């Protein structure tokens, strides 16, 4: 589904952001991309979603060489949830979803109200402008926007940010359901609980390089010291990135 070979990217002469990344993400896999701020996560995601060009190496997404992607076909098959819930605040949740869904073939589009029900969105706010929503409600609408076109590949950036614990559990359940449907998920997060519970494999990114890549279980196992109990993914994070969680 995603194949990255020797990926490099630089924002300027002395601002090398990525130093030769190599990884593959299989169909139906939830792949965690973890790392501290400024480690190159967002840059990698922007390259994978076709926003950033001018990189080095080879990147293939959905079987297409991303450098050559010109058609809208690529964008019809991906769904992206940004770190912040970007929405038209003058429009209601339904109007936002109807607007964004209108760019996809109608046969692929899910029913906005059903999606919002699934995300436990308060029905009373369906037709109220987004400006009146809490962050959690906005996050639910943003998630609905990412899922509205039944994407084959889902990019999620901090999906449980701004949600209360029950909301976070619900989101994890929905992501799991998407995987069961065969959707591939590329998850970028600082939330080690999400990564631990959801991801089949995780990659730790540090200073533009992949410091470790394996299943959460193996990584925790490898990092268990003789005297301690099984380490957490947070311990692994600190060990590989050299920094605590921001």
């Amino acid at each position, binding site marked *: 589904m995603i194949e990255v070979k020797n990926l490099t990217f630089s924002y300027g002469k002395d601002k090398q952001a990525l130093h030769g990344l190599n990884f593959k993400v299989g169909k139906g896999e939830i792949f965690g991309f973890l790392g501290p701020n400024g480690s190159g996560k*967002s840059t990698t995601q922007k390259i994978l979603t076709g926003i950033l060009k001018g990189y080095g190496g080879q990147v293939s997404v959905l079987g297409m060489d991303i450098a050559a992607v010109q058609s809208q076909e690529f964008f019809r098959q991906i769904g992206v949830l940004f770190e*912040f819930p*970007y929405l*038209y605040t003058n429009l209601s949740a339904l109007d936002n979803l109807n*607007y964004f869904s209108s*760019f996809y073939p109608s046969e692929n589009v899910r029913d906005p109200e059903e999606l919002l029900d699934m995300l436990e969105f308060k029905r009373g706010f369906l037709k109220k402008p987004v400006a009146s929503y809490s962050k959690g409600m906005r996050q639910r609408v943003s998630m609905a926007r990412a899922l509205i076109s039944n994407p084959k590949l889902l*990019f999620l950036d901090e999906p449980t940010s701004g949600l209360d614990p029950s909301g976070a559990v619900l989101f994890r359940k929905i992501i799991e359901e998407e995987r069961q449907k065969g959707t591939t998920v590329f998850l970028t997060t600082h939330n080690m609980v999400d990564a631990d519970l959801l991801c089949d494999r995780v990659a730790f990114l540090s200073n533009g390089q992949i410091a470790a890549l394996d299943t959460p279980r193996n990584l925790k196992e490898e990092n268990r010291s003789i005297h301690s109990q099984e380490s957490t993914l947070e311990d692994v994070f600190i060990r590989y990135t050299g920094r605590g969680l921001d």
Partner: protein
Amino acid sequence: MTGMFFTLLKKDFRLMLSARFFLLAAGSLVLYSCYIHFVYVSLDDKMYPVYCYDPAGIGTQAINSITAQDSGRTLPPVINVNTKEELADACSDGYSIGIDLSEKAPRIRMVSCGIDTIDHLRAAYAASRISTIGAGGPAPLRKALLDSEDSPAEADQAAPSNTGAALIGKDSKEMKNRREITAEFLFFELAAVGFLGLAAMLFKEKDMGVIRIHAVIPVQRNAFILSKLGLILLSDLVFSAMLTLINLGAAEGLAVLPAVLMQAGILSLLMALAGFFCAIALPDFKQFSLLYLVLAVFITTPVFLAGQTGLEIGWIKYHPMYHLFLAMKNAYFRNPNTSPVYYAACACAVALLYLLAGWGLRCEMKREG
């Protein structure tokens, strides 16, 4: 593609509605039209009131018999006062003029308005009110009055026997005024308000972060720009047509409408694209406001000064807005610009600004949240 474009158009229309763009445009239309109809076309200074203190009744009768032929208008009569104090009081506003015939040598009494030329004109006008009487009448008075001024010869020449001015062209003075002020208002509306309108809409989208979503959904970036441009262009053309028809009348308005719409379209596109680029390139609305101020003060002011006053600005021919302003005015005066160079330059400017807008949009889509 068509469906996608109309979806974007509908969304932009709703954004403009929520930003009260159409309300502002309608408000401007009403305000400009009311000003033109009720103020500007009848904006003509009243003739200077002339007061006369003539205790002996030497010249008053003769003066009041005069009906000047000023383009068919009857001049207001000279007003008699009973005392010198009353005369001084009546002439203390810097506008009215008093004639004092109580002494041996007649005198003009007035408070200076601050401009020598106008003061001479006022004096000459007062003298002219007694100028058409025969030699046995107040002519000696007139001479005496003008002699009491600093430059009687000048005043004498300045006092025409007939104050009517020749009209050039077929238009009445009122129609000329209407054409002129409508052209100016339209230019101002398109150059300033149109520029702000699109920028305000785009800043809203920037603040909401939704521009970044358009980078990862199947929508063409050109369509994103074109829908906004299309809507602003349509709105500006409707505004231009309405302003022209309301203020020039149906017959005159329709006669100049094609040329006016052509110039309005060019100006609208240029300003909308400039607004788009500035809104995308600048990080916040405060900086944009500062740029807008600079644009208004240093870029459009010389154009208005050169186009509307006698001020000679040698370099103004190199100012692109000046040519757009002249083209708009000429369109209103049935003399549309037909220069291929002008249209080629406009097309190049539109193309360049479009490329800049596209580049700015791509940068905004890549930006961090």
